[in-house]
């Protein structure tokens, strides 16, 4: 085995970003992207439930107060009202924490998805990345809950550049979308030539021994894992699967054929999220070993994101160990 992986990700200071939010959290990048997009797209408004400073949309509130709607701490009404608002021909971005999207999941189901309203739900504070607020605020079930809603597109971008592009992409997509942003300052991992597309995975690093499929904050950790594996001569492919639904089946099958085993990595319960979505495609098309990195069906706790990632087994070293296990199982089959 040879470490043939050549990274296609950006060097820390390479190239200008589309909007220029290097070093931001995903939520900040999202909030600033809304401001950037507002003049070009006059057809959207922003809904908030008293948490604009947390979701990043305070930037938009300041710049476009007449396009900003405060719903108070009442997410169920906000979610269903978004469905009604959209029926008048204007696109609402519904913004709150991911856990409160779970609270209003049935409103998203009936009043948005079932009626196929053009509403964009953008959820900050997903997963253990939420950190010191503790388990009550750490949504590790949202990808599963929203993936199960028929017709709902589910996204989890990996860095500020990608969420900027995704914000514009979902504005141009006619239908309901659930998108995770993120709380922590995020490493910039994508180059200026990166192009987000709904429904497309992107190979960030080529490899032939194992494919690591990740989303959100786990993409950076997957790249860490590939570096660790390369030291031992293992060639790990890294895929940024920022669209969890509809999943890029062709890419998953292609990776199964070319590398023969997988690790999935998500800041989410291992039940029902990205790992499950990948497994559904793999077992039905090209069965091969899969190891899943994620929160192992437990609740989180207070702590800094990196501390939590270490304690709950989400870091690059855990992903690398999982890759070795997957490769070992491949060898036996």
């Amino acid at each position, binding site marked *: 085995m040879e470490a043939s992986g050549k990274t296609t990700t950006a060097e820390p200071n390479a190239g200008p970003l589309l909007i220029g939010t290097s070093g931001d959290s995903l939520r900040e990048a999202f909030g600033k992207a809304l401001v950037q997009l507002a003049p070009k797209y006059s057809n959207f*408004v922003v809904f908030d439930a008293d948490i604009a400073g947390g979701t990043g949309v305070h930037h938009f509130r300041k710049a476009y107060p007449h396009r900003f*709607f405060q*719903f*108070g701490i*009442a997410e*169920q*009404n*906000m*979610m*269903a*009202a*978004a*469905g*009604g*608002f*959209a*029926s*008048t*021909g*204007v696109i*609402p971005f519904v913004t709150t924490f991911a856990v409160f999207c779970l609270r209003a999941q*049935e*409103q998203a189901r*009936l*009043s948005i998805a*079932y*009626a*196929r309203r053009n509403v964009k739900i953008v959820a900050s504070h997903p997963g253990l990345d939420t950190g010191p607020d503790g388990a009550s605020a750490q949504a590790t079930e949202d990808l599963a809950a929203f993936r199960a809603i028929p017709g709902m597109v589910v996204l989890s971008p990996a860095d500020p550049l990608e969420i900027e592009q995704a914000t514009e992409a979902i504005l141009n997509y006619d239908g309901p979308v659930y998108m995770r942003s993120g709380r922590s300052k995020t490493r910039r991992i994508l180059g200026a030539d990166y192009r987000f597309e709904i429904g497309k995975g992107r190979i960030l690093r080529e490899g032939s021994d194992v494919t690591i499929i990740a989303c959100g904050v786990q993409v950076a950790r997957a790249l860490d894992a590939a570096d660790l594996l390369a030291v031992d001569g293992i060639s790990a492919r890294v895929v940024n699967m920022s669209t969890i639904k509809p999943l890029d089946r062709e890419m998953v099958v292609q990776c199964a054929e070319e590398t023969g085993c997988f690790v999935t990595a998500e800041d989410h319960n291992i039940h029902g999220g990205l790992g499950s979505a990948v497994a559904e495609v793999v077992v039905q098309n090209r069965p091969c070993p899969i190891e899943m990195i994620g929160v192992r069906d437990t609740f989180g706790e207070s702590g800094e994101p990196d501390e939590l990632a270490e304690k709950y087994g989400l870091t690059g070293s855990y992903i690398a160990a999982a890759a070795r296990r997957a490769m070992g199982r491949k060898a036996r089959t």
Partner: protein
Amino acid sequence: MQSQQTDFSKFEDLSKRLRIGSLVAIYHAGSGHPGGALSAADLMSYISGRLLAWPTSNGNALTRDRFVLSKGHACPVLYAAAAESGIIPHRMLLTFRKLGSPLQGHPHVLDAPWVETSTGSLGQGFSAAIGMALGLRYQHSKARVYAMLGDGELQEGEVWEGAMCAGHYKLDNLCVVVDHNKLQSDDSNENIMGVEPLRAKWEAFRWHVIEIDGHDFQQINAAFTEAKKISVKPTVIIANTVKGRGVSFMEGSPLWHGSVKLRDEELVTALSELGVSERLVGGYLDGSIWQDDNR
């Protein structure tokens, strides 16, 4: 007074047809919610006969008044109103709740684009109506939004989130009518979870409140007319009604909330009480009465 009463005779005739249509649809479906459809029939008659501009494919979304049936389980009365308005053929009522029918057990906007939105999970239609009212006002539309809620529905917390929101935003383009028939699925509101005092609750949430007899067209007309004149507040019309109104054995009984199967003899009795002549009853029982309706 005599002349005014004559003015409303067309609504009285219409509400009788809505009751007949509702019950026949439920009879042929083998299930459905008759009690809340009948209590709402007079309100629906006025709304569909005077207020409602049905959403059709060429309907201008921004100039059209809208109506949301938030108590979605009462949809037979909405479907019957669509048939009476010529939006759907009457014979479609015979497909209610059946496989492949546009007339789902609770209204669905993709199957029946002439309803305003999908409802059936209580509280959500109200919030959707608030969203519509906000969206219309945001786009400087003068159109109004109407919504009908059940009284049991008021037990949903989302309703009070919405009530607070509409009051806060002074949504005077929004008018809600509560079909206050005092009964819900299992028992009376009061025995399940008391909702009174309704007037004080809505007033506390900064709404203009009107209380009426929901079976009296003089009062229904006066209330909706008054609501149009109210500014800087949304209006709620608390319409006191009788569950199962118009059919003696259904009146005031939670047993007919639904979802219930209507037997042959029960439909015959009900139709007779609603003034259907004996020679026409068979046509409703076998559905043949609407077979020539090719609208």
